């Protein structure tokens, strides 16, 4: 169990992040959850790359063992992708706030329903006339 400790932590973080994304209705909080969810994946990759007694993968004559550099590369990419997604998501949230006046998912849904309800009677009347 102990040798898998890092995995357990990872799992906990991931699930907590995922929970926030799904359960919360606030658009910005969802994004924070999403970024936690993504961040926790970093650990999944990086932790196994560590070697006891190893050192950062910067080659120098005095070291023999290095931690695995490949996960680092991947995660660098992942971080950048994550921040790009976050930035885009925030921009969307800002725009949504502008046009809807709220960033709560439930309220947005309610507003959309209002719009649809306002449009519908017209459509239904036509339908009845047609049917």
């Amino acid at each position, binding site marked *: 169990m102990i040798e898998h400790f890092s995995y357990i932590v990872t799992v906990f973080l*991931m699930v907590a992040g995922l929970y926030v994304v799904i359960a919360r209705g606030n658009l910005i909080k969802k994004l924070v959850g999403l970024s936690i*969810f993504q961040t926790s994946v970093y650990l999944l990759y990086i932790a196994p790359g560590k070697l006891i007694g190893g050192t950062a993968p910067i080659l120098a004559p005095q070291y023999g063992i290095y931690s695995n550099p490949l996960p680092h590369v991947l995660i660098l*990419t*992942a971080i950048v992708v994550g921040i790009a997604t976050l930035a885009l*998501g925030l921009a969307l949230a800002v725009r949504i706030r502008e046009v*809807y006046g709220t960033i709560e998912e439930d309220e947005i849904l309610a507003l959309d329903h209002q719009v649809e309800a306002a449009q519908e009677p017209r459509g239904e009347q036509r339908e009845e006339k*047609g049917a």
Partner: protein
Amino acid sequence: MSLSAQLPALQVVLPLLSAPLAVLLRRGWLAFAVVTAAAWAAFAIAIGLWLQVDALPSNGVISYHIGSWAPPWGIEYRIDRLTSFVLVLVSGMAALVLPYSRASIAREIPQESHYLFYAMLGLCLAGLLGITITGDAFNVFVFLEISSLSAYVLIALGRDRRALAASYRYLIMGSIGATFIVIGIGFLYLMTGTLNLADMAARIGAIESSRPVLAALAFLTVGISLKLALFPLHQWLPNAYTYAPSAVTAFLAATATKVSVYVLIRFYFSVFGDSLVFHKLPLPQLMLWLSLLALFAASFIAIFQDNLKRLFAYSSVGQIGYITLGLSFDSVNGLTASIVHLFNHGIAKAAIFLLIGALVVGIARPGAAPPAPTFDRLAGLARRMPLTSFGIVIAGLSLIGVPGTAGFISKWYLVLAALEKGQLWLVGAILLSSLLAVAYVWRFVEAAYFQAPPPGRELKREAPLSLLIPAWVLVLASVWFGLDTSLTLGSAVEVAEGLVRHRP
């Protein structure tokens, strides 16, 4: 160096180049010219690659080492028949949608954002092509994000404010999906030590503890299913398709979900092989039921939509069910059906969305922004826009699977695959679901052809040719590929046999 040897790289790099160029040029029409040229070049390259694969012995592979680093150290581009098939589909769609988009977005997107629209379309194309062509697991993720982020932006450019909410929802669900995929790839990497898909497939057999591999399978399945909108993970799709600009809807409907299916096929059949997917987990059964659910539930919901675009968006969810259903059969005929339907549905649905785009231009008041295509606005449409309406009907027939259209071919193979399994009830279910398609397509037929147009709207006002021609190319294609199937079916059968060949 010969040009032909560099085609794999150019396939992705040209559209990729076009995007920053479009941003630098800033002028709408210049950006349009650059991205369109790139899309057409990509299409030509895809055909070139197709011919190259054709010249190889059966099941041959073109391998291209980026940066001249041999795999598994560097990133490899790997093109086989299936890859090339999807490349042709994706780039061909882009080559058609781009000329269409110019007139289509004129009233949908503010003028000063046009160059960004083209840049995004170029990026989305590059991303989708990159996912398809690459032989590296992590590279799949990176290009997936390129295509996804650009898709979010493209959707958010829709005029309706609901486009923003739809885009946001897609962003959240898409990112969760992408993260699931990364987790899956991570497990696989930790177990095999490699990111190259072919290398991974070779090493995966030697793994003693299969638990992480199974977990990887689960995560990849869920992640990709989110992306391909497998029922019930489809919630992002209807609104996204409904409120996105018409050209975007058509392009995404024809390519994005299809490329996800391609990725799924790659992982299932090429990486995991037959050992895992179909024996250790009840995945096929699960997928079978979800597909059936998609077929019925989504098609059923589609029937009651008031907005034509939304109707066909739900229809997409249903039609994706056919594709995954074919996968779940795990047989040559089933896989053939999936691959053929991937193509056939792509062109038919793209044709429909392109024509709906033409339709909203046609029903718009002069100078005003195009309205939503709700049914009360479609009465008697066939008089005003005969070509548009007729095109939608023909493509709709292909969705139904009427013989003589492309959709029939896929249905034929699906039924054949179900018969092979000896599951007669499935045959019934597949055919019954296609009757639901009749129901929703016919709502349009009745409205357009057999209802009197509202007074004062009886003049003929067909959409401009620049909208009609690309759409009709696809309409005719969906008839053509129902009659001459040597291209689609021929390659699908070859691919399916290649992928399922290990079976005893």
